[in-house]
C-alpha cells in the first residue's frame, strides 16, 4: 500500500470497502489509513464529500488548511476514486493536483490488493482498549480530585488528544484538566461553563463531534475558533450522574475520533466511574496524590 500511496504522492491512503449499501469500512491503507484500519465505519450518505466521490467517480478537495474530509480524517488536500467495491481516498499535500490517470490506476491497484483487516491488527486494537482500562483500574488515588485529574490525563493520552478534562458535578462542582497538552486561554469557570451543555447532550452515554466547525455547541472557549477541531465526551456514572469526561483534538494535529478511540473512551468511562464511585462511597478526601500504578 505504501508504494500505491507513493504513486499519488499521498501520505495517507484509505481503502473504504462497501460492505453494504450504506456502509463503508476502512479495511486497509497507508499512513492513517493503515493505523485506522478496521476502525472507520461510515454511512456515505452522511458524508458529503464521499457521496460526491461516489456520484462523480472522482472528486478532489483542496482547502488551503486542514479540514475534515470524511469521518475522523482531516487533511489539507485529498482525492477520492470510486471503484466497483470500494472508495479509495488519497490524502496529503499535492494529492488534489495528481493527474487523473495516475490516481485512477493507483486506486484500482489499492482496491484489488485489499484483504481483511489482519488479526494481529485487531488484537493490537483490543489490547489498546484493555490497556487504557487497566491504567485507570490500577490507579490508587487518595482523593476524588486526583483520580479525576489522572482520568483526564490517561484519556487524553490513550486517544492521542491534546485536551482532556473531567467535570464532576459535585457538589461542589469541580473541573480537572489533564496534566499535559493544549488548553484554551480561559478561566476554569469558562471551560466548565462550556462543558456543561455538552454534558447534557450525552443521551446514549457517548458524544462525538468529528468537526467542531459544524457544532450545535458553539460555546467559547471550546470552539473551532479557539483551536479545538473535534471532541468526544463520555458520561461518568450510569445511575448516579457524576460528571463528564471530555477529550479533544486541537488544530495542532487536526483529526477526529475513530471507532477505536470511541471504544477506548467508553471503556475508560466505565472504569473511571467505578473508580470514582468507590472513592465517593468510601468518603475519600478531595486532596492528595495518586499512587503510581502497580508494576
Amino acid at each position, binding site marked *: 500500500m505504501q508504494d500505491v500511496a507513493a504513486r499519488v504522492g499521498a501520505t495517507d491512503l484509505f481503502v473504504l470497502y462497501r460492505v453494504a449499501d450504506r456502509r463503508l469500512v476502512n479495511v486497509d491503507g497507508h499512513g492513517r489509513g493503515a493505523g485506522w484500519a478496521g476502525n472507520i465505519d461510515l454511512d456515505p450518505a452522511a458524508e458529503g464529500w464521499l457521496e460526491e466521490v461516489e456520484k462523480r467517480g472522482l472528486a478532489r478537495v483542496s482547502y488551503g488548511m486542514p479540514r475534515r474530509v470524511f469521518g475522523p480524517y482531516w487533511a489539507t488536500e485529498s482525492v477520492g476514486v470510486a471503484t466497483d467495491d470500494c472508495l479509495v481516498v488519497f490524502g496529503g499535500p499535492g494529492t488534489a493536483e495528481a493527474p487523473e490517470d495516475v490516481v485512477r490506476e493507483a486506486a484500482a491497484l489499492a482496491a484489488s490488493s485489499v484483504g481483511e483487516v489482519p488479526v494481529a491488527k485487531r488484537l493490537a486494537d483490543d489490547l489498546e482498549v484493555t490497556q487504557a482500562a487497566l491504567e485507570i483500574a490500577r490507579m490508587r488515588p487518595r482523593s476524588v*480530585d*486526583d483520580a*479525576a*485529574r489522572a482520568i483526564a490525563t490517561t484519556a487524553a493520552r490513550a486517544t492521542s488528544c491534546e485536551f482532556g478534562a473531567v467535570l464532576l*458535578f*459535585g*457538589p*461542589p*462542582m*469541580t*473541573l*480537572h*484538566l489533564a*496534566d*499535559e497538552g493544549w488548553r484554551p486561554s*480561559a*478561566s*476554569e*469557570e*469558562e471551560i*466548565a*461553563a*462550556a462543558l*456543561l*451543555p455538552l*454534558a*447534557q*447532550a*450525552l*443521551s446514549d452515554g457517548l458524544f462525538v463531534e468529528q468537526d467542531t466547525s459544524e457544532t*450545535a*455547541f*458553539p*460555546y*467559547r*472557549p471550546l470552539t473551532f475558533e479557539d483551536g479545538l477541531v473535534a471532541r468526544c465526551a463520555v458520561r461518568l456514572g450510569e445511575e*448516579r*450522574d*457524576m460528571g463528564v469526561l471530555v477529550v479533544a483534538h486541537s488544530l495542532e494535529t487536526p483529526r477526529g475520533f475513530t471507532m477505536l478511540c470511541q471504544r477506548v473512551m467508553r471503556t475508560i468511562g466505565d472504569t473511571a466511574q467505578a473508580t470514582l464511585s468507590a472513592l465517593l462511597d468510601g*468518603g475519600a478526601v*478531595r486532596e492528595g496524590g495518586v499512587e503510581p500504578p502497580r508494576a
Partner: protein
Amino acid sequence: MGRPRMTRRLGGSERLRGARAVPISFRVGSGKAFRVSDESLGLEEGVALALRAVRQPRTGVAAVLSVAARAMGADLVAAYVLGGSADRLGEMIASAGPLTSELGPLGPVDEQTSSVLQGCLQDAVSEDSLFPEPWSRLPRRVHLVDRLPLGAALVVLAAGKDPLDREVLRRVIGPLDLLVATMTVMERQERLEQELLRLRQDQALLAAGLQHDLRTPLTSILGAAHTLRDRPARIPPEQRSELLEVIAAQANRLNDMIGETLARHAAGPDVPVRAVLVDPLLVARRVCRAARSARGGDVAIDVESRPFLCDESRLERALLNLVDNALKYAPDGTEVQVIGSKAGETYTFTVADAGPGVAPEVAAAMFSPYVTDPSRDDGTGLGLHSVAHLTEELGGKVSYARASGWTRFSLSLPWREADGA
C-alpha cells in the same frame, strides 16, 4: 517544570462538603408527579459558575440553561431574543438538553419558530400551537418571557416528556437577563469595532483608488498637452481640436470626480448613483479618444447606440480603466476592440485585446484590491478593483474571459429606458 495542578472548586455557592441536597417532590394540577432534584448538580452552583464565566456570556447562558434543564428534567431548553437588534424573526442565542443537536445552529430562527415565539410574547401559546421539530415531539412545554432594554425580549422555552416546573425558569431568569444584556453589549461592541475597522479600510482603499483613478485622466490630459506642445506645426487642425476636446473632457471628468469625492466625504460612502440618459456609443468614443491620447495604439469601436439610464461618470471611469489596460497590454500592431450591444434587459460592453491576459494564479482574485500580476511590475492592483466597484454601483457586473488568444473584459449593465420613452 510541570504545569500547576488544576483542581479547584467552581461556582460561588457555599455548600458543606458531603452535604446532599434533598430532592423535592411536587404535584401539579394534572396529578402527575415530577421531581426537582439538585442532588447531582445544583442550580445555584451552576448559575454562580455561569456568572463567573461572564467574559463568555453566551457560554454562561448555555450553562444556566443546562442546569435548568437538568433541574427540570427537560429534554430541551433554549433562549431566544426577539426585537431590538435581533433578526426580524428572532434569534436563538443558546440551547441545552439531550436533544440540543436536533435543534440546528444558533442564530436567526425560521418562520414557524418565530410564530411560536410571538405567541409566547402575547401569552397565546397552548399545547395545540404548531411547534416545529423537535419541540413538537415533546408533549410538556413551558416558557418564560422577560423584557429586555431597547424593545427586545428574552423568551426561554423548555420541553420534555414529563411535566416541567416553570418555577425553575423563574429562578434563573434574573441571571439570564444579566448574561444576555452583557452578551448584547459585548457583541454590539465587537460589531462596532469591526465596522470601524471596515470603514478605515474602505477609507484607505478609497484614497488609493481615487489616486489611481485621477491618474488615468491626468495621463490623457498630459499626453494631449505634450503632443500639442511638441509638434504644433505637424498637427492638422482637426486633430488639434480633437486633442483639445480630450483635454476639456478629461478635465471635466476630473472635476466631476473631485466633486463626487467631496460629496462622498460629506455624505458618507453611499453617494447615490445619478442616472441620466446615456448614449453608449458616445461614451465609448469619448473614452477611446482619451485612452488613445494617453497610450497611443489602435481601437476599433463597434458599439450599438441604444441610450439607456446610467450614471455616466461611473460608466466612463469603469470603461476607461478597461480600455486603458487593454491598450497597455495589447502587443504592438494589434487592435483593441470595444464592442457594445443590448441583449434582453442588459447592455454589455466588451473590451478585448490580444495581450497575454491575467496570470492564472491571480485570476480568481483579480477584482480584489491590491491584487497584481506577479509577472508585471507596473500595476497598483486597484484598476480592476475600481472597475468592479463602479460596475457594482451601477447594478451590473464585470467578468473576464480568455479564449482564442483574446483577453475579454465585459461590463454587463441593467438596461433601463428613460421614463416615458
